[in-house]
């Protein structure tokens, strides 16, 4: 009985081992089949769209009167404007309704000051591209693009009366210079 039992157990065990091997083989075959049939993965990587704009596009904050006069003075004289003068010029700007006109008057007063830092016309013409780049950097804190550079180069070359002062005046009066 006991033997029989052992024999039966042995048969059963032997049968189970056979079944397991078959299942393992089937599983392996399925796995191999599936992996063999798997489509090749193509790596696809996307970037968020970024709108590329020139530096000027980021200037959307209007300078206050005090910021404007301080920056202008620094650009023209390469020195800081004394605090008392900043206060007085702010008050003067408040007292004039047409701010553009007030700026014109102030700039023309600055240019009448002997200590204003300007390249000479000869220096400008001897290195026109350098002058244009430096002017953009000085007033707009950026480099000109090729179109701007070309237009300004042609403009200066075709006008005999253009001086660095006239160029600086135009940049100081421009809308871009009102913003930072």
């Amino acid at each position: 009985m006991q033997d029989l039992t052992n024999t039966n157990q042995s048969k059963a065990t032997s049968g189970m081992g056979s079944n397991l091997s078959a299942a393992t083989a089937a599983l392996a075959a399925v796995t191999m089949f599936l992996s063999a049939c798997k489509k090749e993965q193509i790596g696809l990587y996307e970037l968020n769209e970024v709108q590329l704009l020139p530096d000027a596009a980021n200037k959307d904050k209007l300078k206050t009167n005090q910021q404007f006069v301080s920056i202008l003075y620094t650009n023209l004289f390469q020195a800081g404007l004394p605090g008392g003068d900043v206060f007085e010029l702010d008050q003067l700007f408040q007292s004039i309704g047409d701010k553009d006109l007030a700026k014109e008057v102030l700039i023309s007063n600055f240019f009448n000051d002997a200590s204003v830092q300007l390249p000479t016309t000869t220096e400008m013409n001897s290195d026109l591209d350098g002058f244009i780049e430096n002017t953009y950097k000085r007033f707009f804190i950026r480099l000109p693009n090729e179109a701007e550079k070309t237009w300004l180069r042609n403009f200066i070359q075709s006008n005999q009366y253009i001086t660095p002062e006239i160029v600086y005046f135009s940049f100081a009066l421009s809308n871009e210079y009102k913003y930072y």
Partner: protein
Amino acid sequence: MKRREFIAKSALTATGALASPYILPSGRLFAPTGNRSSQHVVLVMFAGGVRHQESVDMSYLLGSQIIDPYAGNIMYNMLTGEAPIAKIAYGTGQGGINPIPQLDYFNTQGTLQSQGTLFKEVKALAAGHFGGLNSIIQGADVNGQGLKQRPLYPTIFEYLRRHGGYSATDVWFVGNTIDGSLPLLNYSGNPDYGIKYGANFLAPNVTFSDPGANHLSHGKIYHPENELAPMFALKTFLDNTFSQYGNALDELGNTEEEKQNIKTFMNLMYEKVANGTNMLPPVHDNGDAWTVGFAAEVMSHFKPAFMCVNLSSVDVCHSNFTGYVQALHRADHAVGFLWDMIQSDPELAGNTDIICIPECGRNANPNSILDVNSWAAYDHSDANALRIWSLMAGPSFQQNLVIGSETEVIGQVSDAMLTVADLLGVKPEVAASPYLAAYTDSFIHQIEIHG
């Protein structure tokens, strides 16, 4: 597109084309529909909170200072009435004992009141300065108007420029200071109007002060064709480049010619002030007198269609009643000087109208502050502070006429603005505005009714 849809869209397009505004050569959208009856109008915002009692009631100290019950008229260029005979402290010299003499012009021609119409009892819409000033220039009830904020609704300057086609230098606002948000009053924040229809503003006591002379009077003169033309050509190029990013600002709209004219005026003023030859009332020992002197210069130089000038020295009344009566006496003297100057200018005489109106009154009862004469001071916050008046003169107004009384309020502060619009030909457009205070009416129309 279906046939029905096509017809509907065609009809809409046709209607739109018919209704779309035609831009006139002057830049305005529509021709003004009103009649312009005056060539020049001066509006004086008088003068920082004026009590009815010391002005048109001619009470002087009677009622306000129990210890000194003396009545009399201390505004005898503008108003008709006898001056006080005792306790004189509003004049010049030590203690203000020397009254400023009546200007010769009024001595011979009669007071401003006799030359025009006095609305004796007018209602103010605000008891404070900024609200009061806003109610004058907007013609609106200014509830919700904040300090340090541009007018909520269009100002008379913008109505004139947008609907009347007046140029920027045709419309001036001369302020006595840059304090109290005054420089914000030359145009509103209303999106349909705004800076491009604003007035040229000057606070000449600041602009032509010593700092002004130091910083702004030594401008370089540029050749208009050889230098200015390329300068602005380059500026245009730079602005066009920058405009691609949408940051261009609207401007006040002075043309280049107008800008040059203003610069010429500024240089002239610096020169005159330096030489001591700028126009000034005979007595000019306070800021209002200087403001009016420069206002006279603006009138003389630009001959504008409209000039508004603000005075405010009487506001010293918060703490100094003696200073108040002195400032009131000088404000009368200054306005008299301005009218005298206008009558002596061939281009302005006979075709200029003037309207004077306080922005608010002052309280019935004093505060606790006593001055050197032991006179009590007055603030402005009660019902008495809403009692004002308006005096107007010139060819458009009936002479020697008084309308209204203490028991009969006729007119309100917003009427002044509509009167300016009436005189300068834009009344229909302004009257149709949804922003006007209720019951606003032109003083001219009210004269026709009550005169």
